[in-house]
């Protein structure tokens, strides 16, 4: 508990660092909101008009003044207004987030449901043809880019079965669960396939390590069956690397999956951030990056807590 509070106390510090980085980075990119908004026509503006617009957006001030005003706003719960959407940043981000979260959760479920059994199977049939088969598939899964796999899935379904992935207006889970799932299942499979391949490989190597550990030999010397050795003695010890990998992958997915969102025309966080960067929508980029960083930290914290639950040797908050 004490540890949890101390970890949470470090969050603001990290977020402060992230905020400075993203704030400076986006301003180092040439161009500004005005050119991004008006395109070539921005060249037609008189200096007076330009100054007026700059003053309107607040980008006429030195960067530290801008930063100060932005941070001050955040402390009062105001993340600023998105130039492109004309709405509060937090509203825009929170509107996109459920889809991204759902997609990440679905992908992880697929990855674990496929990857864990495949990895365990390969480890217990090590160096046999079936192990080789699993390893080859996992290698393919890891090395296939998501746009190839995504397009392949769409093409196969439409050309082979005449089925088109459900497109159109995105339906949130709580409004129309069936339609929502039909929209998300293919993107989740596309993302989950590569994820599952990583899980398979890491689960296989972790299980192989653990199966040669002394305590597995002890379990066998007690007369434990092959099944009990695998599920009761080996698996719990092999979970740590799987949790580490899943946590990192999940954290990335929470930042949005630009390519898959693009292929399946999904309004997720990834495309939104990309658009915001292209549009020099400073407030939206800064706000969403902070949000993504916060989520990543939460996932990391959950991973650390999972370690403690899995392995009694790990004690948090001790040196």
């Amino acid at each position, binding site marked *: 508990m004490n540890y949890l509070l101390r970890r949470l106390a470090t969050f603001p510090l990290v977020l402060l660092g992230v905020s400075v980085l993203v704030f400076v980075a986006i301003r180092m990119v040439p161009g500004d909101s005005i050119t991004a908004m008006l395109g070539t026509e921005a060249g037609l503006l008189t200096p007076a008009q330009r100054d007026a617009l700059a003053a309107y957006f607040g980008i006429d001030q030195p960067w530290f003044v801008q930063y100060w005003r932005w941070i001050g706003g955040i402390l009062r719960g105001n993340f600023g207004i998105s130039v492109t959407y004309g709405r509060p940043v937090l509203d825009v981000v929170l509107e996109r987030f459920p889809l991204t979260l759902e997609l990440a959760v679905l992908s992880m479920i697929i990855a674990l449901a496929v990857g864990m059994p495949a990895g365990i199977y390969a480890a217990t049939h090590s160096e046999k043809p079936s192990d080789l088969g699993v390893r080859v598939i996992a290698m393919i899964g890891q090395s296939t880019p998501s746009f190839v796999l995504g397009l392949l899935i769409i093409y196969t379904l439409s050309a082979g079965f005449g089925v088109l992935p459900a497109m159109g207006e995105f339906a949130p889970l709580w409004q129309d669960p069936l339609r929502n799932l039909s929209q998300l299942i293919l993107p989740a499979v596309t993302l989950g396939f590569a994820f599952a391949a990583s899980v398979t490989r890491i689960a296989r190597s972790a299980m192989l390590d653990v199966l040669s*550990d*002394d305590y597995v030999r002890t379990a066998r*010397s*007690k*007369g434990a*069956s092959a099944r009990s050795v695998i599920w009761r003695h080996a698996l719990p010890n092999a979970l740590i690397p799987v949790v580490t990998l899943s946590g990192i992958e999940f954290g990335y997915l929470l930042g949005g999956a630009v390519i898959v969102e693009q292929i399946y025309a999904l309004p997720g966080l990834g495309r939104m951030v990309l658009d915001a960067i292209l549009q020099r929508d400073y407030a939206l980029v800064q706000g969403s990056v902070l949000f993504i960083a916060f989520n990543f930290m939460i996932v990391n914290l959950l991973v650390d807590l999972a370690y403690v639950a899995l392995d009694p040797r790990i004690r948090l908050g001790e040196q």
Partner: protein
Amino acid sequence: MIPLLSVSGLRVGFGRDPRANEVVRGISFDLADGETLAIVGESGSGKSVTALSINRLIDFSGGRITGGSMKLKRADGSLFDLTKASEPQMTGIRGAEIGMIFQEPMTSLNPVLTIGAQIEESFRLHRGLTGRQATSAAKDALDRVRIPDAARRLKYTPNQLSGGMLQRVMIAIALACNPRLLIADEPTTALDVTVQAQIMALLGELKRETGMSVIFITHDIGLVAGIADKVMVMQNGQAVEQGELNQLLDRPGHPYTRHLLRDVPHFANGRATRADGKRDENAGMNPALKVDGLVVRFPLKSNVFSRATGAVHAVDGIDFDLMPGETLAIVGESGSGKSTTAKAVLGLVRSTRGSFSIETNSAARSARPVQMVFQNPYASLNPRLTIESILAEPVIATGGRVDAGTKAAMASLLERVGLPANSLQRYPHEFSGGQRQRLCIARALMLNPSVVVLDEAVSALDVSVQAKVLELLVDLQREFGLAYLFISHDMAVVERIAHRIAVIYAGQIVEIGKAASVLSQPRHSYTKKLIAAVPTIDRRRERFELDTRQMPSLVRPQGFEPAPARWEAFGEDHMVRVEG
């Protein structure tokens, strides 16, 4: 009468073609009910493979039984050939009729399960017990191996118990279902000598209580003297000699058995100490190393921001001096502070207090007069460097250049430590453990040091290799006038190399003096206990006493200072800390 286990012509091989890679080549022995057979051999002799073949665990390590038979007399009196058993049949026999304990108790228990759950598993598997019945059976099993406060300990996970305690838990698991055969594969090798004595005592008592038969695998023929009825000596996968204990120890027939009994260091209560290097010969010389009031404390903090609430007093006021050409052995059990002392001398840990003075006796001595040889020769040589680079490392580290002179020094040192001259371009993996330790010694000597710290330098080596490396160390000491600080837990080795011995307990020296005097007439109660625990060939069938006392905690409150030591002298060079 039909023996419990009758092994005949057992052959075990590894790899794709097991018949071509046989590690055990035709082993035969009979084991009667209630009998103890000791299998003695060095690493690679096939003793552990033989043990793992009996309960067919070898199947999981890539081994295959290629010939012979192993007939086990089952509980119902029928004979069963273990070499022909299927895996499901074996799961019914393992744990129920054959129990096994292993060398490393620290890694042999599942780290994520409580020890209670791990003991209960045996009862679930073979007795069908569940729930409260299984828990209470597990508690009885812990009581049986004399673990105090068993009910509470059931909920512990392995990381909360010491090595000795974990080995007791392993014994509890192995004996849970009263197997008639216990296979013990080097069960005390990883343990301190005092803990070893307790485990041996426990095994002896349990054997008397249950009447089980035991196969005891060990590299230490001295340990066998205390427990075995019969002994089998193995070398290169074959039994070179087997027979009754007394006959084999007193009238060894095979040269290898004689070698194990005579050439290998065995503890002889101070009768085998070195005769050279009398202290008074050096009178008037400055000590090579003088340590004054060495204190090493590690502060304990509850978190980064808070102040230290206490400290681990790893080393708490140690003084000694070491003359040129002399070996001072520091003995003690794990956690006593002996390695911390060595590291402090080398500056590898910061000492809290205390001073060192190191004498560089001649102008030829280098700027780094203290060098070190570590315990594990497999881990302490960088596998990516050639021997030449490894030997050049200390020269480069001190700002020297590797020139023709350095290369000549390398070649002559290699020759001096007994390695072929063409070794320079080879890599560490091409050498055996003993050769690697010779390399480490050569590396330590590259800078022409006056003091060499040897931290368990021969502990990882096979017994006959140990003897040769010790000989080399003694020769080098005479030739170069080296002073050795020899850290070890192995009294037999210490006896061969030490001129003086310092016994360290809970961070303090409790007894220091001439080796022969300390080993033959220990005065401090801890030294007595330590020496009594060392197995020897002379004391056969001796019953070790069960003693569950533990070393006191070294954690002290902030600002704690130990009471100043009072010393009592026995003879000219033998000081004992007054107990109080």
